[in-house]
């Protein structure tokens, strides 16, 4: 294993992670809910349940984050190398997969593991394992 020390950013990663944790903590303690992005967005499709307000508010906060960031600082590099076709397929898989799997990196990976939920631990191991394997296949087997 070769560690890329040049791009390794331990302090901003740890601080950013803790800020994500604080957001999840606020949402659990104040709103009584899990800050799971796929669940929050997925719930927008169930118009009849009448809990649109907080879902739209949370999503608006997330979408506004880069705009608020830019009031104080220029944005760091946000680089997408994947082509449009593959991005569309990946987005489709992420959309269907996170709904069937009841969560994503935030709901299972952060909140679920924090709650020591066996379901979330399994889900996180599966999507991280599959993520590692997929990148291996894409980069080192097919060389895309």
């Amino acid at each position, binding site marked *: 294993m*070769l*560690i*890329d020390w040049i*791009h390794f*950013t331990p302090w*901003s*990663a*740890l601080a*950013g*992670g*803790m*800020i*994500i*944790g604080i957001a*999840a*903590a*606020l949402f659990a*303690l104040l709103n*009584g809910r*899990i800050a799971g*992005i796929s669940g929050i967005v*997925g719930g927008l499709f169930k118009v009849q349940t009448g809990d649109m*307000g*907080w879902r739209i*508010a*949370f999503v608006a*906060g*997330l979408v*506004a*984050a880069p705009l608020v960031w830019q009031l104080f600082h220029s944005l*760091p590099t*946000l680089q*997408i*190398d994947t082509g449009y076709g593959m*991005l*569309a397929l*990946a*987005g*489709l898989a*992420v*959309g*269907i*997969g*996170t*709904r069937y*799997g*009841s*969560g*994503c*990196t*935030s709901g299972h990976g*952060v909140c679920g593991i*924090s709650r020591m939920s066996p*379901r979330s631990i*399994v*889900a996180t191991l599966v999507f991280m394992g599959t993520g590692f394997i*997929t990148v291996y296949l*894409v*980069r*080192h087997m097919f060389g895309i």
Partner: protein
Amino acid sequence: MANITALLAGLIFGLGLILAGMANPAKVLAFLDIAGAWDPSLALVMGGAIAVGSIAFAVAGRRNRSYLGLPMHLPTARVIDKRLVLGSLAFGVGWGVAGICPGPALVLLGVGSSKGVVFVAAMLLGMGVFEILERSKSVDRPKMGRHV
């Protein structure tokens, strides 16, 4: 009030994603590429978030109502089933191809990146397909308990 705190939580979450490097798909893919030049940063993102989250959920788990007086909606499902595993598998493949998961996707939408727009549109389409399949199924048989 609940909508204001939801807006703030979403905003803080997004700022955390940007600072952590999670909103940069190239960095996420560098983390997932253990056979290449591996960037372990994102393990620390998870570690930092879980460290704070564990304390918060230990408190939240003992409460019947939130500090705003709202009912607690914490998941109760315990069954590890095929849906959980296969869904997470499909998510992992998509995440591995693009390096984007749902939170960062919405941040990239806010940046106005055209690739971010395409990803989010496809993701919403995928979620819509899930809803349609679920609804067509619930017509045939009574609705199963909600999983989270």
